């Protein structure tokens, strides 16, 4: 979230898209209701299914799954055609005036520079035009046909209400109602927020879905302000924190890019990953990258990281460069593919139910049996821990050696977690771990300690990163938290904790496991434990609690808050001020950098993480285009979407193996769209909540929601057992015939959509098995997030069922 949970109360319009917030983040929803009741905020819910979120909204937009860019493109077009954008904000704080280079083009669904063989773009022709001095050319009048504002207008002119209606299945009236309500926030004293969740990310156009919100929020001046922002409602318990700390292949902690094979030295790494800006008003925050990287290496390898050995840079594993769709991608989709092929021999699965929650389950379950050994840490048995004797599996044929460590419950350990609003919260230990369970931290420390000893005793392949590791004797959450924050390793303050970003150096004199968390555990102590609700009246008005726990970065509750004020530092809306320049200093939230307002000497642009400090209406950072464009899901019920001849994302990541079958567009065997979702009573793969009797009683078995019309067509009655089938798998479920889902009218024909939860699995007898046997491994080209939210299936009444009791 750029903003935070409480901040939702400040909004005038809440666009909830790709999220069922009322059911999946139930306790946050009171802030939505508060905005509605106390400010008269309009609530718009965009989701294929009518849910408890829709029931509390002013408008429900039931769109066909996978057509979000069409919907949002229509909104961009509506804002521009009707000149509803916030002009001062767009002129001062975005790249609307930048001139795109002459090589840029967009023809029939493809941008300039597409390489069809490798399914990647050469981005050379997307770049901005530079003058003799290397500065970006601009047209402040926004009239140049190649300036960003005009390119944007031209690109989205095709997204008429009528056309959007035909492909999304939403009536033109409903679209206009939603566009009108949201575009009304494009005024200085109005704010609109966008709340999204996995319904937006889990598509082969997932990142571009979110890019549309960036464009809309910049046009309407909604970034940085209270009641605004782009707010990912993080689903998992600490997924914010575990992402910050990089349980991911592509980044090191603190969003430092993975070193690649082309970077032979630390200097190469710094050169390739550190942006240089010529704009004097730009903070260009990432120019500090070398300081964060060296401090990180110092924390990893302690005193063994020295200037002479490049701080151990070459002890880190390096990825191959991303030269094609597949190269250099070590994410889940490739990981399980390599496991099936026998290239991955062993590994660990900790507190995640891969055999239930990953797409194309049949493939993943088969892949697990190819491993030599697997070590796991879990709180309950589930489909992953028990894969070796699952349905249709003969354990006598499974070679995999399995080690299962019991891990303890959160109440049995202490540590910090980061909520969706980046607030880092400390949880205390209530009791000791039950039985022989231990914290995952302790288990990892013990295993690695043993590995280090083995290498010290026996030697072995490339022991350097292992024997030089700055390792731990036992799990002490506060000790780790201190190392995450970081400390001075030499100089007058040696041994003292770092106070914040400005203390970092690139000469090895500071060490920190994650620069973003610097300030969380200072010499004053563990600030994540703070419980004070003390606020200034200004902070109180917008719901900021600067003395409760600690918010990264630098205890800043609203990111990009310098965009909430004009060039003189005065809030666009004084009644909802996040920060204000009082003539001498900033008041309110911690500002994005301490520089004075733009009109003062040394004033800086608001978007400090971007090279030029300006919001990117047009951006060259993504791999699949500088502007979002509608493409169909990889499995789609249509053959032509009407926006271009390019049916699906040309860069989508697709696997070619026998078990990764994809049905052709509009396959008559599988005419129905399937979308998947979670529910209030169960958690993700369900292995914890299925074992709580009251929750299982509330939601006892796998169901499939469908419209009355589809049920009538198929002769299915509410409560009938049915079979949902597609090119990859077959799933049994109970029919739930409901008015919550209605048929879609797409390009003049009726298309049905059904929805299924995925929390059920065979280890709890008779409740159903993995819905994900139907979903597919097709990934967003930027993130490799799989397209869980849309695939094609058939449905029929079951004669006999074996998975349901």
């Amino acid at each position, binding site marked *: 979230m750029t903003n935070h949970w409480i901040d939702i109360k400040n909004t005038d319009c809440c666009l909830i898209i790709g999220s069922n917030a009322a059911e999946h983040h139930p*306790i946050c929803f*009171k802030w939505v209701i508060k905005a509605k009741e106390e400010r008269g905020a309009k609530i718009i819910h965009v989701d294929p299914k009518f849910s408890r979120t829709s029931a509390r909204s002013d408008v429900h937009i039931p769109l066909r799954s996978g057509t979000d860019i069409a919907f949002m493109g229509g909104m961009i077009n509506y804002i521009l055609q009707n000149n509803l954008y916030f002009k001062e904000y767009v002129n001062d704080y975005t790249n609307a005036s930048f001139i795109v280079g002459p090589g840029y083009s967009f023809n029939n669904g493809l941008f300039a520079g597409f390489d069809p063989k490798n399914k990647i773009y050469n981005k050379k022709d997307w770049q901005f035009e530079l003058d003799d001095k290397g500065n970006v050319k601009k047209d402040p009048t926004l009239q140049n046909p190649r300036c960003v504002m005009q390119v944007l207008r031209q690109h989205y002119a095709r997204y008429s209400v009528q056309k959007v209606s035909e492909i999304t299945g939403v009536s033109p009236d409903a679209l206009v109602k939603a566009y009108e309500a949201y575009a009304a926030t494009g005024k200085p004293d109005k704010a609109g927020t966008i709340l999204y969740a996995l319904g937006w990310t889990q598509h082969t156009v997932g990142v571009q879905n979110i890019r549309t919100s960036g464009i809309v929020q910049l046009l309407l001046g909604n970034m940085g302000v209270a009641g605004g922002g782009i707010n990912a409602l*993080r689903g998992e*318990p600490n*997924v914010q*924190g575990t992402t*910050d*700390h*990089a*349980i991911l*292949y592509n980044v*090191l902690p603190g969003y430092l890019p993975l070193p690649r*094979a082309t970077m*032979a030295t630390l200097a190469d790494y710094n050169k390739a990953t550190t942006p240089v800006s010529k704009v004097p008003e730009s903070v260009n925050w990432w120019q500090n990258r070398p300081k964060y990287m060296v401090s990180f290496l110092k924390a*990893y390898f302690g005193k063994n990281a020295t200037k002479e050995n490049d701080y151990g840079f*070459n*002890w880190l*594993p*390096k*990825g*191959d460069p991303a030269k094609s769709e597949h190269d250099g991608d*070590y994410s889940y989709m490739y990981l399980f593919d390599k496991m099936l092929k026998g*290239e991955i021999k*062993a*590994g*660990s699965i900790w*507190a*995640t139910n891969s055999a239930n929650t990953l797409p194309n389950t049949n493939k993943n379950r088969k892949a697990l049996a190819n491993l030599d050994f697997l*070590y796991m840490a879990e*709180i*309950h048995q589930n489909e992953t821990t028990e894969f070796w004797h699952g349905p249709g599996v003969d354990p006598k044929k499974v070679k995999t*050696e399995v080690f299962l460590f019991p891990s303890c*419950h959160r*109440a049995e350990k202490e*540590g910090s977690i*980061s909520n*969706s*609003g980046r607030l880092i*919260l400390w*949880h205390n230990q209530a009791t000791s771990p*039950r039985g022989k*369970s231990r914290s*995952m*931290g302790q288990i*990892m420390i*013990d*295993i690695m300690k043993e590995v280090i*000893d083995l*290498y010290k005793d*026996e030697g*072995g392949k490339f022991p350097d990163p*292992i024997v030089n590791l700055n390792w731990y004797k036992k799990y002490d959450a506060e000790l*780790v*938290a201190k190392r*995450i924050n970081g400390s001075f390793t030499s100089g007058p303050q040696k041994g003292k904790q770092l106070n914040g970003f400005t203390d970092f150096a690139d000469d090895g004199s500071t060490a920190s496991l994650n620069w973003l968390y610097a300030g969380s555990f200072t010499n004053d102590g563990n600030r994540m434990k703070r419980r004070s609700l003390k606020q200034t009246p200004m902070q109180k008005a917008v719901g900021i*609690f600067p003395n409760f726990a600690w918010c990264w970065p630098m205890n800043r509750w609203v990111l990009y808050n310098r965009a909430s004020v004009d060039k003189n530092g005065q809030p666009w809306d004084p009644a909802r001020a996040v920060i204000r320049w009082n003539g001498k200093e900033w008041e309110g939230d911690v500002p994005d950098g301490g520089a004075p307002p733009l009109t003062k000497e040394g004033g800086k642009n608001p978007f400090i993480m971007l090279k030029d400090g300006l919001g990117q209406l047009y951006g060259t950072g993504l791999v699949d285009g500088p502007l979002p464009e509608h493409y169909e899901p990889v499995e789609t019920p249509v053959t032509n979407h009407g926006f271009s001849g390019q049916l699906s994302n040309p860069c989508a990541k697709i696997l070619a193996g026998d078990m990764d079958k994809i049905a052709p567009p509009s396959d008559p065997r599988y005419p129905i769209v399937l979308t998947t979702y979670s529910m209030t*009573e169960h958690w993700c793969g369900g292995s914890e909540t299925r*074992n*709580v*009797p009251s929750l299982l009683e509330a939601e006892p078995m796998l169901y499939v929601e469908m419209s009355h019309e589809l049920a009538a067509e198929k002769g299915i009655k509410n409560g009938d057992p049915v079979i949902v089938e597609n090119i990859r798998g077959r799933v049994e479920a109970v029919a739930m015939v409901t008015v919550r889902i209605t048929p879609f009218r797409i390009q003049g024909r009726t298309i049905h959509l059904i929805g299924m939860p995925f929390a059920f699995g065979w280890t709890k007898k008779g409740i159903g098995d993995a819905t994900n046997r139907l979903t597919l491994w097709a990934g967003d080209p930027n993130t490799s997030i799989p397209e869980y939210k849309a695939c094609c299936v058939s449905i029929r009444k079951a004669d006999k069922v074996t998975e349901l009791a």
Partner: protein
Amino acid sequence: MKYTRRDMLKMAGAGAGAIALGGLGVNYLISESYAKKLKIKGAKEVISICPFCSVSCHFIAHVKGGEVVSTEGDPGYPVSEGALCAKGSTMLSMINSDHRLLKPLYRAPYSDKWEEKSYGWMVENVARRIKDTRDKHFVTTNAAGQKVNRLDAMFHAGSSQMSNEEASIVVQAQRALGILNIDHQARI
């Protein structure tokens, strides 16, 4: 102190009776708080956080004799203000669930059963296999001849259930082994 199902039923009965009496003009709040006092009297209050969605609602665990005897929402957390959803409300039964894994288990190749093992045995055996696999499959250079120093033959599927500190430790270990195939729920 452990409650049997019978004790719980008795307490629930007392509560229901109190509510019925409330209709007759008796102040049932006194008897209700008395019932609560029985359960958490003398208990230590410890604040923890619900391990589900990242609203991160805080809960208060009441601890008595080393056991959690009650959980309730923490009104001091300004986001949740004491509220809990259907999942958060079951924290007590999650912690004390009979279904939880409490012993290290091992399944041998081609075996059809779990075997209980000691923690030390598990740690030693896992470490040995990691080392053997690493030594056998470690890759120094890639196909283009560039130095990569990595272990392509192993993977880690991790978890957002970990605290920040646990995540930091796990990532540090996996990368030190040379593993790049690292992923978790952020992508799924």
